[in-house]
């Protein structure tokens, strides 16, 4: 592998609201290799979507990417690009697909027009050529009769077809990186399976890198090469998919895995994580997971742990003091 | 706050006796303090500068003098009573258990334009109630020597000049405010009550009831409001009572539409379904679960409707279809000045400004309420 295509370092995106500072993303770092799929997992409000939007610099005010955050695409530093240069990146080098295929397409323009628009903008081609490319893309994502679909409005397609159209739009300019923000959450299970297969297949065929954001561990396990687990605006654990799911190091990852219901085994009770996700307005001091952690001791309440260990780094003091691991944590809730 | 014992409360009492609002100011509650100071000082000013007219209350024996007298007393009492009690203990308003109304009020309080509107409205009503004490002229008395006093430009004697009969325009505007400010409440009261009832019934029961009621609403809404009003009023003899009733009976359809829309969307909400699953009856569901949730939009509509009705009434009196002369109303003062617009611009200009400021204050309050009561802005 020839070095990462996307490097995010110490990304901090804060919302300066009237009610105070909301540190939605607070020091996130990761690399994305060429052709790799990176899964970002976390519960609601952990900052995974904001991380994606920050990469494209699409965070709406009062949200702001704080200074000293770096987002490097190849040799370009995205945080320092002019707005015009950044527009060159959006939809061209990096594209994004969103959770709600119902609302993410403009209801008053045709599918074909919306796809061709990006092609014409970034490729500088004419109307006819843009249309042709749009039809080609619709065919690529598996819509039957692509030529006829061009003139359809979004409301004439079903949910699954709309998400395919979104994917076609995102891939129309052969991006290097695709950001997929919960692309299957709003879909039925059987449709979700189709879309996941489609994404896997397209990625292999087109060789792009992908960041796949989801709250669903199963989905990420299925599609990602590497996974980062986010909680309260930070990365808590990072590693290869296999490692994360079979040997989680961080108590949060562990808890999350155990509280996920399984199809195979019938358990009398599910393990749980106590409490609920904290509000982004007031992250807990010290380790942000400590109020819900079964192993927490004094140090966790005061000092913020760094991402420790090398091959599967975990933001937990247990990495330094493994003897502190308690039984209660094993039993689960 | 609670720690301050007898000593503290005595201090507060003496500070409040000196000037209401002082204790609040000392505690750093600027808004409460300043408004109390303003209330107390303005009431005292009326008492001091209009002392002879206050005394006249007992000799003239007119009802508006008595209303003014009671207002003055109430204003003074309120200033001193609130001076002692306001802001005590409630400074530690806890977030837990705060109802949506309390939260809405907190939002409203933070909204400076809306609070400005509220102060303006309170001031307007005080001025209207105190009218006899605020001027030494009579609104409708025409002096014999008209030519000497007609069309006098604004001066110290006549703040807003005089009209073609030599009547003081400022005085006429003061007295004219009564019509604008009272008609609104009654007419809005009627139209809100009718509109809420029809809207709720239509939305909750649906079907044929809904279809019939809504066709009726459509029909009423098709008439340009003023055209319908002048037609009806012209057929009856124009009088304040007719205007109020006709306004109330013709303005309800828009409220009905708002309420119906809200009820329809509420009916789909799961908590209504839960109430049904618990076996609650329709009256209880409407009263306990639906009405409280449509109250917000209704209050907003009512406030904005107040401003609207003031404008409509002004238009009617401009056309001579409201209060018959010589009773002053803002609209007919403007009509009076129209003939001599160029020679005596002040006659038409000032009542118009009075209308603008009154309507602005209602609209500011209405907008503030909308922001404060809109649940979409929270959660």
């Amino acid at each position, binding site marked *: 592998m020839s070095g990462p295509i996307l490097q995010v370092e110490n990304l901090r995106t804060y919302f300066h609201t009237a009610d105070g500072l909301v540190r939605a993303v607070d020091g996130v770092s990761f690399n994305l290799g060429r052709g790799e799929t990176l899964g970002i997992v976390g519960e609601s409000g952990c900052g995974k979507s904001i991380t994606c939007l920050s990469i494209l610099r699409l965070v709406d005010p009062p949200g702001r990417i704080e200074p000293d955050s770096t987002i490097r695409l190849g040799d370009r530093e995205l945080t320092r690009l002019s707005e015009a240069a950044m527009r060159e990146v959006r939809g061209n080098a990096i594209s994004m697909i969103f959770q709600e295929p119902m*609302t993410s397409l403009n209801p008053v323009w045709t599918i074909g027009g919306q796809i061709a*628009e*990006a092609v014409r903008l970034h490729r500088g081609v004419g109307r006819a050529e843009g249309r042709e490319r749009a039809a080609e893309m619709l065919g690529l994502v598996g819509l039957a009769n692509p030529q006829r679909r061009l003139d359809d409005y979004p409301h004439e397609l079903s949910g699954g077809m709309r998400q395919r159209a979104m994917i076609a739009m995102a891939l129309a300019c052969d991006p290097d990186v695709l950001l997929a923000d919960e692309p299957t959450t709003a879909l039925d299970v059987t449709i979700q399976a189709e879309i996941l297969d489609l994404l896997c297949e397209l990625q292999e065929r087109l060789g792009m890198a992908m960041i796949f954001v989801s709250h669903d561990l199963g989905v990420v396990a299925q599609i990602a090469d590497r996974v980062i687990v986010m909680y309260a605006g930070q990365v808590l654990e990072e590693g290869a998919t296999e490692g994360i799911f079979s040997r989680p190091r961080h108590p949060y990852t562990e808890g999350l895995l155990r509280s996920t219901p399984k199809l195979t085994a019938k358990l009398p009770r599910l393990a749980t994580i106590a409490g609920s996700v904290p509000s982004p307005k007031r992250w807990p001091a010290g380790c942000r997971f400590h109020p819900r952690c079964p192993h927490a001791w004094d140090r966790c309440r005061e000092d913020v742990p760094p991402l420790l260990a090398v091959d599967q780094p975990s933001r937990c003091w247990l990495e330094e003091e493994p003897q502190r691991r308690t039984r209660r944590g094993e039993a689960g809730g | 706050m609670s720690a301050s014992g007898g000593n503290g409360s005595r201090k507060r009492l003496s500070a409040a006796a000196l000037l209401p609002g002082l204790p609040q100011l000392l505690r750093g509650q600027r808004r409460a303090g300043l408004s109390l100071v303003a209330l107390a000082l303005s009431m005292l000013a009326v008492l001091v500068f209009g002392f002879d007219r206050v005394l006249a209350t007992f000799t003239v024996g007119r009802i508006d003098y008595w209303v003014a007298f009671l207002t003055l007393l109430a204003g003074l009492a309120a200033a001193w009573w609130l001076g002692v009690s306001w802001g005590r203990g409630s400074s530690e308003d806890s977030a837990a258990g705060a109802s949506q109304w309390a939260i809405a009020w907190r939002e409203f309080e933070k909204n400076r334009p809306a609070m400005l509107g509220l102060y303006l409205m309170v001031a307007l009503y005080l001025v209207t109630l105190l009218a006899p004490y605020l001027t030494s002229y009579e609104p409708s008395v025409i002096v014999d020597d008209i030519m000497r006093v007609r069309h006098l430009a604004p001066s110290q004697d006549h703040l807003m000049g005089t009209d073609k009969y030599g009547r003081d325009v400022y005085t006429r505007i003061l007295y004219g405010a009564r019509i604008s400010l009272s008609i609104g409440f009654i007419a809005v009261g009627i139209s809100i009550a009718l509109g809420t009832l029809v809207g709720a019934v239509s939305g909750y029961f649906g079907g044929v009831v809904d279809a019939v009621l809504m066709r009726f609403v459509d029909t009423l809404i098709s008439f340009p409001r003023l055209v319908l009003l*002048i037609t009806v009023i012209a057929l009856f003899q124009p009088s304040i009572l007719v205007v109020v009733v006709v306004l109330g009976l013709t303005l309800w359809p828009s409220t009905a539409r708002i309420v119906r829309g809200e009820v329809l969307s509420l009916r789909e909400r799961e908590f209504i379904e839960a109430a049904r699953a618990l076996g609650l009856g329709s009256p209880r569901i409407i009263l306990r679960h639906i009405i409280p949730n449509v109250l917000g939009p209704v209050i907003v509509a009512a406030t904005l409707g107040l401003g609207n009705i003031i404008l409509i009434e002004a238009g009617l009196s401009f056309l001579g*279809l409201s209060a018959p002369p010589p009773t002053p109303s803002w609209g007919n003062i403007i009509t009076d000045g129209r003939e001599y*617009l160029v020679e005596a611009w002040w006659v*038409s200009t000032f009542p118009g400004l009075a*209308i*603008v400021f009154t309507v602005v204050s209602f609209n500011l309050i209405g907008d503030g309420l909308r922001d404060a009561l809109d649940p979409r802005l929270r959660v």
Partner: protein
Amino acid sequence: MTAYIFRRLLQAIPLVFGILTLVFVILQVAPGDPMAIYMHPSVAPEVLEQMRENYGLDQPVHIQYVRWLKSFLSGDLGTSLTQNRPIAAILAERIPNTLLLSGTSLLLIFAIGIAIGIVQAVRQHSKLDHALTLGALFIYSMPSFWLGLMLILILAYRVHWVEWWPEALKFPPSGMDSVNYDLLSTWGKFTDRLDHLVLPSIALGVSSAASVARYTRSSMLEVIRQDYIRTARAKGLPERTVILKHALKNALLPIITLLGLYLPFLFSGAVLVEVVFAWPGMGRAIYDAIQQRDYPTVMATTFVFAVMVVIANLIADILYAVVDPRIRYERERR
């Protein structure tokens, strides 16, 4: 689509009947002898008696009602008591004038209102936005007739005392055209008419323009929050395209329906503004009729006003259905 238009047309029919019925009821409910509305110094008692028979007022109410319906639907709106000619003929002269005034205002309202609303939405929370919001608040709190008087006072009279004031910005205080109108060339007629239109159409339209601006602003802000705007930005489109292509069409669609909502409001204002500016339209006609107690004309004018509103709503709805690709679909689904 055609089915939708057809159905919408069918829906308008009961509305017209409702309007007719309501006007009839108002007449019936009015205190005193229904014939009282015809009691006028210029009408002799024996004529009244004759009319009573002609109008079938000696007949039971439901027969009167049917006759009333028949005559109005056949375009016979009765006879004016003061002018002694068919009301339909009088209104035929007046309707174009009112439509000219309201139409000009409507144009003004939407052009200015939408433009200001967009500027405000794009520059949300800026000083400009706040200033415009405040300005709009004052403007739509103004009575139109008072604004008209102020405009006359300043732009038709006061400015004549100001030497440097350009001639082109002095306007006539009243009427539809100058005394020498008939002598003017076609172009001269056009500019003269335009000159006379300026003040009344501003007085009539400016408050609605303020409210359209408010509506456009909030509609734009609502649309800008939508997911598809984020999608458009994620494609790398320049902000101009995002606003003008992706946001504007969505934001303006609901504004089309306002067209039908503003018209009754405009007609209300037209009564006042036509009185202020001595504009010979329907509003002026109804005002004069009331002054002269010419009630048949009052009722007929009211009816025509309402029917015009129904037609305007019809046009707005059909326009909306034509422009919005979703509407056909939804109608079919339901």
